[in-house]
């Protein structure tokens, strides 16, 4: 069977061991576990910004350490919990992130459509500088989606939103990713969110 993402005997540092896992296209996986159990670290290992202490991660049956790291990260996008946006308007932010990636700019219509998915109805020329944490988080998620990832890794993507909004935004994003055959691995402390949307939940244990 072809797996999109798979890891075997994976260890981060010497203390954190991950259970072997395989992820097929379209699947939505939630990672749960206590603080410090290595959830965010796992996401960093999968998109190659961190090298594991031991074990292997495969993307489309190719070990990720054999892939060009930039090529890997462009396919496996990681949106971390801490949101970074450039100073300026929403459309500036879409443009600048794509400029850094050397990818073509995204059309205004597409930006607007992705913002709608993330439950955001502001004008693209609105400045991000004075927005609330929740608003910035949604813009950040829309930008991540605009990169058309093959795999989307989200670390606490709704941490700055209230529960009702978190459900709407996650529901929309998951629906969008399913429609585009984009598997997702999501780190979340919100058990209700995990139980509602996960195809599978990986429970990581704390350090021994």
């Amino acid at each position, binding site marked *: 069977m072809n797996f999109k993402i798979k890891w075997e005997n994976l260890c981060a540092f010497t203390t954190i061991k991950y259970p072997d896992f395989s992820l097929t296209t379209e699947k939505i996986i939630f990672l749960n576990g206590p603080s410090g159990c290595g959830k965010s670290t796992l996401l960093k290992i999968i*998109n*190659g*910004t*961190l*090298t594991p202490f031991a074990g292997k991660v495969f993307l489309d049956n190719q070990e990720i*350490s054999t892939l060009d*790291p*930039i*090529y890997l*990260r*462009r396919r496996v*996008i*990681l*949106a*971390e919990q*801490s949101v*970074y946006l*450039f100073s300026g308007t929403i459309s500036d932010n879409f443009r600048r*992130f794509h400029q*850094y*990636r*050397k990818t073509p700019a995204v059309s205004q219509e597409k930006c607007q459509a992705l913002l709608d998915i993330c439950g955001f109805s502001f004008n693209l020329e609105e400045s991000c500088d004075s927005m609330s944490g929740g608003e910035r988080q949604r813009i950040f998620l829309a930008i*991540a989606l605009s*990169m058309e990832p093959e795999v989307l890794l989200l670390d606490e993507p709704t941490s700055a939103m209230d529960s009702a909004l978190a459900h709407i935004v996650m529901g929309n994003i998951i629906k969008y990713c399913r429609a585009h055959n984009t598997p997702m691995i999501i780190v979340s402390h919100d058990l209700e969110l995990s139980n509602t949307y996960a195809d599978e939940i990986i429970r990581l244990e704390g350090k021994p």
Partner: protein
Amino acid sequence: MNGVADITITNFLLIYLLLLIVLVVMKLCHIGQSKLLFVASLRMTVQLIIAGFVLMFIFKNPHPVFTIAYIIAMIAFATHRVISKNKWLNKSFRWAIFGTMALSGVSVLAFFLLAIVHQNLFNPQYAIPLSGMIFGNAMTGLNLGVKTFHDNLESEHLQIETLLNFGAEPKQILLPFVNNALETAMLPTLNSMVGMGIVALPGMMTGQILSGTLPTTAILYQIAMMIVICTVLCLSVFGSLYLGYKTLYNERAQIIFPQ
């Protein structure tokens, strides 16, 4: 024009009274740096006395080896100062600083001595004091540039991580930090060039005029030296940071944040 007036030791010692004024102001303003003022004054005095005697010896016994040794000592000391103020620098980055400062400083000095003033490259009367000005300014510029680079990397940690996660190349991410640090390092020199001759008569020109050189000759030296300093500062900061930033990421394009 007369030559410079001699200062007797007794008269010279009076100058230290001015430091008492500085000390009083520092005490009144609760600046707890009296010890530093004392150490700095003492070190300056001792170091300059030693330099004076060493230079007297070298001028009396001019030999290329002495000139080269003196210049190497200056470069080593300047590098040491930059490194000791920026302990986060890794080994390769430190070599980049030493190499670019030495290469840019010596090449521009050689150009100045050989092409502009037509002097022997190893003439200690020219090579040593000019090197002092060149490497002293390069050191200040490098300190400022390297510190700015590091401070910005720290404050923009989140930007860097996010861009990496989104698939931007480390080069693409870090180069703007190099450019920004270079600009910051160059600004004091550029600003001092703007005010030169109006706000201040620079040290070299003042020294030459005091020792009897015609002001018209002194300004030519000063203009040339300011351009030399600006060039060496630009080359050494740019070279150090340009070679240095490449030591901050590995072959897996993971940025190793300096601690």
